[in-house]
C-alpha cells in the first residue's frame, strides 16, 4: 500500500504564506528520502482562499531537491555534520564570523540561530541593509502589517509593485476592490491591465502627482534591493494622507526574521560580498539562505566564498551553496517543519509539519558552544511574546496603524543614474533603463520559464527585432543574448524577471542591439 500523508502547509514562496496542502506519497519499496509530492488547494486558508500562483504550483519541483548532510564534501549523517560544525565554530575567531538568515526558516529556528550567533556576540544578518538607511524611529513603521482584506475595503489602491509577477495573490484583492468601485493607480514602468491609471514616476514626484486619502491603501514591498528613496517617499505619502500602507516581503518569514533580528547592524548582500572578498569574514554560517541565489551576481559569490576558511550551511533544500559548503547540515524540507512564521500582513501562521530536526540541530550547536537548554516550546513562546502574540491564528492579521515618522533624513541612498536619453532612430543600438521585476522564482532560485526581457513595441521596432529573434544586452561586464517579449512598458525601459549576467544593480543602464 502506498502511504500518503497530507500536510496543511504554507507556501514558502513569498511573505504572504499562502495556505495549501502538500500530499506526500512514499511507496513502500521506494526511497524514503524522495517522496512523491503534490500540491493541493486549501480553500479555507484566509490568506489566499486556496488559490496559488505559478510558484505555488511549482512547489513539488522546489521541494524536489533534499540536501544530504555533508562534511568536507563527504556525505555524512546529520549528527556528524552537527559535530563537525560545532568543532569548526569552536575553532573560529569571533571577529571574522558572520551569520546569515534572510527569513526562509521558522521563527523558532531563527531564534535558535540568534542564540547561537549570540555566543559569538554576532548579530544574525538578514540582508536588509535598508533598515540602516532609516533612523531607528522609522523602523517600527516599516514593520507594520495590514490584512489583505483592507485592500478590498479601500476606495483607492496605489500599486508600487507589479502584483502579476511579484505577489500574485495580492492581485485578487485589488480586483475585488476594483469591482467594488475602487480606483487603481499603478506606479511603475509597466502598464498593468487592472489599473485605471498607469504612471511612470520618480519617487520625488510621488508627493505632487499622487493624492491618496484616508480610504486609500498603498502597496509596496520591502526587500534587500529596495530603494530607500522610494520607500521614504511612500512612507511620507502615507503619513501626509493618512492612507493605509502594506509592505509585502520576499521571504515567507521576512517579517519574523527582521523583527527577531531587531535590525541591528544589517549589511546588504553587496557589502557582505565585499567583506568576503576582502577576507574580513573567515567563517560564514547560512541558515536556509543561499547567497548565490540571493545575489544578482552568482559567479562573484562563488569566487568570494572561496576566501572562507569554513562555510557552514544549514539547509532544507539543496542549492548551489550546499554544493560548495564545507559542512552541510541537511534539515527537513520546509513543509515538514513544525513551527511558525510571521507573514507580511502580520499573521502568525503555523508551518504545519511535525518535525523539529532543524531546530534541534541548531539547539545542539548552541549547547556545544555554551548556550544550554534551548527547548522548542520555550523558544516558541519567546518568539510569540516578542511579537506581542500568544498563539498562531491565521485569521488575525495585524490591525493597520497610521504611519507617523515625522521628518527624517535618509542615512544612505541609492546611487542615482541619469535616465538615458533616447538615441536617434536610425542607430542600431539603443540605450535603455534596465530594471528587475522580482518574482518568487528569482528569490528562491527556482528555474522559471522566462528566458526573455520585456520591451515596448517602439523599442522593438527601432531595433528592428523580429519575432523569435534575440536581443543583445551590453553592460560594462559583458554581453548577453536574450529573447524578448513585447509589453506595455514606458519608453526606454527594459524589464526582466530573470537574473542577467552583468546586470548586478537592480536598476542599471544597458545598451541594446539586435
Amino acid at each position, binding site marked *: 500500500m502506498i502511504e500518503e500523508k497530507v500536510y496543511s502547509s504554507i507556501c514558502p514562496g513569498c511573505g504572504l504564506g499562502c495556505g495549501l496542502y502538500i500530499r506526500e506519497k512514499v511507496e513502500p519499496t521506494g526511497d524514503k528520502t524522495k517522496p512523491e509530492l503534490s500540491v493541493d488547494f486549501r480553500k479555507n486558508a484566509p490568506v489566499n482562499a486556496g488559490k496559488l500562483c505559478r510558484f505555488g504550483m511549482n512547489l513539488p519541483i522546489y521541494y524536489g531537491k533534499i540536501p544530504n548532510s555533508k562534511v568536507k564534501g563527504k556525505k555524512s549523517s546529520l549528527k556528524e555534520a552537527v559535530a563537525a560544525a560545532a568543532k569548526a565554530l569552536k575553532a573560529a575567531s569571533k571577529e571574522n564570523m558572520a551569520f546569515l538568515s534572510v527569513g526562509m526558516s521558522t521563527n523558532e529556528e531563527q531564534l535558535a540561530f540568534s542564540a547561537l550567533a549570540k555566543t559569538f556576540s554576532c548579530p544574525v544578518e538578514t540582508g536588509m541593509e535598508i533598515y540602516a538607511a532609516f533612523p531607528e524611529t522609522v523602523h517600527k513603521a516599516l514593520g507594520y502589517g495590514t490584512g489583505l482584506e483592507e485592500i478590498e475595503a479601500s476606495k483607492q489602491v496605489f500599486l508600487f509593485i507589479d502584483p502579476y509577477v511579484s505577489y500574485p495573490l495580492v492581485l485578487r484583492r485589488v480586483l475585488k476592490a476594483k469591482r467594488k468601485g475602487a480606483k487603481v493607480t499603478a506606479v511603475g514602468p509597466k502598464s498593468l491591465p487592472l489599473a485605471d491609471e498607469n504612471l511612470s514616476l520618480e519617487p520625488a514626484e510621488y508627493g505632487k502627482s499622487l493624492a491618496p486619502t484616508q480610504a486609500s491603501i498603498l502597496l509596496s514591498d520591502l526587500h534587500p534591493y529596495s530603494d530607500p528613496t522610494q520607500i521614504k517617499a511612500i512612507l511620507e505619502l502615507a503619513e501626509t494622507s493618512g492612507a493605509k500602507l502594506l509592505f509585502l516581503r520576499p521571504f515567507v518569514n521576512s517579517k519574523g526574521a527582521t523583527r527577531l533580528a531587531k535590525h541591528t547592524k544589517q549589511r546588504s548582500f553587496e557589502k557582505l560580498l565585499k567583506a568576503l572578498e576582502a577576507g574580513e569574514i573567515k567563517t560564514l554560517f547560512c541558515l536556509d539562505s543561499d547567497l548565490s541565489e540571493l545575489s544578482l551576481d552568482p559567479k562573484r559569490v562563488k569566487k568570494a566564498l572561496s576566501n572562507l576558511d569554513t562555510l557552514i550551511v544549514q539547509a532544507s533544500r539543496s542549492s548551489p551553496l550546499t554544493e560548495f559548503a564545507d559542512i552541510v547540515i541537511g534539515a527537513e524540507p520546509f513543509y515538514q517543519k513544525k513551527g511558525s512564521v510571521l507573514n507580511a500582513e502580520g499573521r502568525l501562521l503555523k508551518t504545519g509539519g511535525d518535525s523539529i530536526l532543524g531546530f534541534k540541530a541548531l539547539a545542539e550547536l548552541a549547547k556545544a558552544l555554551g548556550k544550554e537548554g534551548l527547548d522548542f516550546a520555550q523558544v516558541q513562546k519567546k518568539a510569540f511574546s516578542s511579537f506581542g502574540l500568544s498563539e498562531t491564528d491565521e485569521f488575525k492579521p495585524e490591525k493597520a496603524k497610521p504611519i507617523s515618522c515625522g521628518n527624517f533624513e535618509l542615512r544612505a541612498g541609492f546611487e542615482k543614474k541619469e535616465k538615458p536619453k533616447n538615441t536617434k532612430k536610425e542607430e542600431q543600438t539603443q540605450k535603455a533603463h534596465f530594471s528587475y521585476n522580482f518574482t518568487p522564482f528569482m528569490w528562491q532560485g527556482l528555474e522559471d520559464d522566462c528566458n526573455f526581457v520585456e520591451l515596448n513595441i517602439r523599442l522593438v*521596432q527601432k531595433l528592428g527585432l523580429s519575432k523569435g529573434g534575440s536581443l543583445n544586452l551590453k553592460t560594462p561586464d559583458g554581453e548577453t543574448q536574450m529573447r524578448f517579449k513585447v509589453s506595455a512598458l514606458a519608453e526606454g525601459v527594459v524589464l526582466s524577471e530573470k537574473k542577467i549576467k552583468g546586470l548586478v544593480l537592480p536598476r542599471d543602464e544597458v545598451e541594446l542591439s539586435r
Partner: protein
Amino acid sequence: MDPSNKNPAPGLSWEPKIVMFCCNWCSYAGADGAGIGRFQQSPSMRIIRVMCSSRVDPVHVFNAFLEGADAVLITGCHLGDCHYINGNEKTLVKFKFMQMLLKELGLEEERLQLNWISASEGEKFASVVNEATEKIRKLGPSPLKPEGVI
C-alpha cells in the same frame, strides 16, 4: 509576421493575409493546377502543405490568428476521396468545433473556412482564393492581429 513592419512604407496599406492549409494529395495539387492553368489569383495566401487536412490541429488555426492571419482556409480532398480513407471526415469534426468556438468568441465566421478541392480543380482553387480574399478585404483586419503586425 514581423512586428517591425508596423509603419509600412508610404503607399503600402493593409492587404488580407490568409493562411491556407492544403492537403498533399488534392488541394495542393489543385494549387499547382491553378498555376499551370494560369488562373488569376490574389497574392493574399500563405500556403502550408500538410499530408492530410486532418493534420490541421485547432492549435495551428488559433496560432495563425494570434500571429496575425486575417483568415484561415483549410482545404482537403472531397469527402470519400481521402487518401487515408476518412481523414477529411475527422477534419470535418474538428472544423465544426473550431467554427462553433470562433463564433462564440465573436470572430466573424468567414475568417475560418473549409473547402474540398480536388487535384483537378485548379479553377476552383483560384476562385476559392479570390472569393475568400474579397470577403476578408470587406471585413478588414482581424481583431486578433497583434500590435505592430500588418
